[in-house]
């Protein structure tokens, strides 16, 4: 009997099923559990039940959401914010967990830090109390965000009950045009299938345009899977993946690395693997993209105009479009390239890696930003390498601020907020109402596009501006 062809997802899932209930629920073994400051509810739950952490050696705590973007020489001024950072340290210490704190030389956004440190590996199951855990699927891991009760369950048992999700394969063939990036690719995917287009599904990204992406680009794509409704997105591991992992601090070394690679090479989807849904996109047709509304599904080419609710037949939909346009302060029919912005933010778990900073700096080199802006690298190592390449000087000379690693203005809970009514060109992942601050207006785009917007003060097609 020949074996049924299996997808990457099916191989990783099958290898982690510890027990199955008659109703189809599976108890999955978890290989990596990442925690950030928001984990205090979950620690409270296990403490309340007098439970301990089952596998501290697979559990890693990272301070990222509440850490300051400005100087770290002084204590955090806001006592409630400082408390979030110290609570994580205390909980990690009490349970014997490796803690990447405020002053750790590896500190950074958990979804930047873990791949960088070699903690993220192909074939693993990875969870974190953060929806952008989908990022780690770029390595061929099954990685997804969970809530506080599930975090407490993983802490106590190193397992999680899950129903097997459905699968969508998104194939992107062809070559991306000049200045068109992984961010534009994933925005185009979300624009095509909708913010709930892959709800209940795990996405596998495939095709020549995906294969051609660097690990940074793949991380950006998988990061925003959740913005298409998919709890996880995955990309088959290949030589690009293995080259990235080799030599990293926590990665297997020597003969153990070779054994791991031999196993990882068996993970890609078999020819003939069946998916519940197939979507195809032409890479050459993808333009530099921006969002106009308050959902990532409102991504359109920057060359487009603001859509007209009057052209929408469904009255409920038309009403929802009007509400978004009202929040965003936009008029139907106006060219997006005429929309003036108030500030830029370059950072986040989506776009704060070295490749992102290089792309933004290439646009800003020799130019001045005409609006204020903040550039926050994803980790201390990214920050150091960027400084070694002089990228910090490019940003500072352009008039932007150069920050310390963390989530910063993507979620605003460390105090970095877009003021009410202001419009921000942002390399982040969510343009939800209030996401970057009450009544803040967010347009999502790539680092190169955000840099172009900084240089002109409006939404700009980076292809027209060019980069050095």
């Amino acid at each position, binding site marked *: 009997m020949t074996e049924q062809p299996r997808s990457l997802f099916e191989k990783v899932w099958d290898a982690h099923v*510890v*027990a199955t209930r008659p*109703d*189809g629920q599976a*108890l999955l*073994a978890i290989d990596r559990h990442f925690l950030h400051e*928001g984990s205090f*509810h979950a620690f409270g739950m296990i403490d309340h*039940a007098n*439970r301990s952490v089952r596998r501290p*050696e*697979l559990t890693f705590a990272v301070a990222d959401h509440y850490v300051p973007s400005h100087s770290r020489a002084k204590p955090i001024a806001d006592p409630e914010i400082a408390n*979030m950072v110290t609570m994580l340290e205390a909980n990690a210490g009490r349970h014997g967990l*490796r803690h990447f704190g405020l002053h750790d030389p590896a500190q950074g956004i958990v979804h930047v830090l873990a791949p960088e440190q070699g*903690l993220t*590996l192909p074939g693993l199951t990875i969870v974190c*109390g*953060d*929806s952008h855990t989908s990022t780690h699927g770029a390595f061929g891991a099954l990685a*997804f*965000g*969970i*809530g506080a*009760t*599930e975090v*407490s*369950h993983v802490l*106590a*048992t*190193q397992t999680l*009950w899950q129903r097997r*999700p459905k699968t969508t394969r998104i194939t992107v063939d062809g070559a991306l045009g000049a200045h068109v990036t992984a961010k534009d690719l994933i925005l185009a995917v979300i624009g095509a299938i909708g*913010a*709930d287009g892959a*709800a209940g599904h795990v996405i596998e990204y495939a095709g020549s345009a995906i294969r051609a992406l660097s690990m940074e680009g793949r991380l950006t794509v998988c990061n925003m899977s*959740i913005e298409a*409704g998919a*709890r996880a997105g995955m990309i088959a591991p290949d030589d690009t993946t293995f080259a990235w992992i080799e030599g990293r*601090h*926590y*990665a297997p*070394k020597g003969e*153990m*690395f070779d*054994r*791991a690679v031999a*196993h990882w090479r068996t993970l890609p989807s078999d020819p003939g693997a069946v998916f519940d849904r197939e979507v195809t996109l032409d890479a050459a047709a993808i333009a530099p993209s921006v969002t106009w509304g308050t*959902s990532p599904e409102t991504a359109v080419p920057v060359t487009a105009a603001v859509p007209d609710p009057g052209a929408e037949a469904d009255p409920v*939909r038309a*009403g*929802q479009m009007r509400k978004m346009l009202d929040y965003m302060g936009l008029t139907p029919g106006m060219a997006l390239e005429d929309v003036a912005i108030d500030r830029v933010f370059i950072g986040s778990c989506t776009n704060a890696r070295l490749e992102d900073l290089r792309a933004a700096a290439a646009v800003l080199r020799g130019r001045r930003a005409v609006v204020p802006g903040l550039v926050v690298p994803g980790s201390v190592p990214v920050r150091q390498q960027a400084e070694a390449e002089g990228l910090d000087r490019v940003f500072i000379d352009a008039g932007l601020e150069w920050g310390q690693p963390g989530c910063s203005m993507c979620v*605003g*809970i460390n105090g970095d907020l877009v003021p009410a009514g202001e419009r921000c060109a942002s390399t982040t992942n*969510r343009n*939800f*109402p*209030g*996401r970057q601050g*009450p*009544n803040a207006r967010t347009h999502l785009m790539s680092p190169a596009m955000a840099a172009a917007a900084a240089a002109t003060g409006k939404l700009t097609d980076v292809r027209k501006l060019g980069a050095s």
Partner: protein
Amino acid sequence: MDPFVTLTAPAVPLDIANIDTDQLLPARFLKKPRSAGYGNFLFHDERKPGFPLDVPAYTGAAVLVTDRNFGCGSSREGAVYALVDAGFRCVVAPSFGDIFAANAAKNGLLTVTLPEDAVAALRRQLQETPGATVTVDLPAQTLTAPDGGALSFAIDPFKKECLIEGLDDVALTLRHQDAIDAFDRADVTARPWLVPDAR
């Protein structure tokens, strides 16, 4: 958690798609302990005049009837705490964010998924008759609209069992302790690179 079996309660309609967890619970409240009571934070920044939750006819609603992709976005369980602490026991929508729906079940909040047309019709009834009640029968998997029409809904059997019995699933998982231990033992030889050497 409180078990969920049946519920007859006023329902409030909300004609908004893609309500994300940042709207349900703005991020600045995430650092609050649960003991602070999350009910006052629910939709904190959306509370403008005319917002359905603040219309007197809908006070006391325990069911929220809304549009597609409810609870998308961040995994913050606080979004569920905010609904539960504000008195909600059930949300009805054409689709939900996966993480939100999982979090809801862990906190005794029932998510009912119904076809888009059926949910839109239900919202219209509630707009035409503010304060009308709906009845949810979880064992029978039915929702009865104000006009008396009964709608059947599907639900994962495990989720249904946990909601009806108010189960703590860690206790349930620990019944599989032997299987977990056996998996871990086998893994030591199958994937010796799993546990990092470095600290």
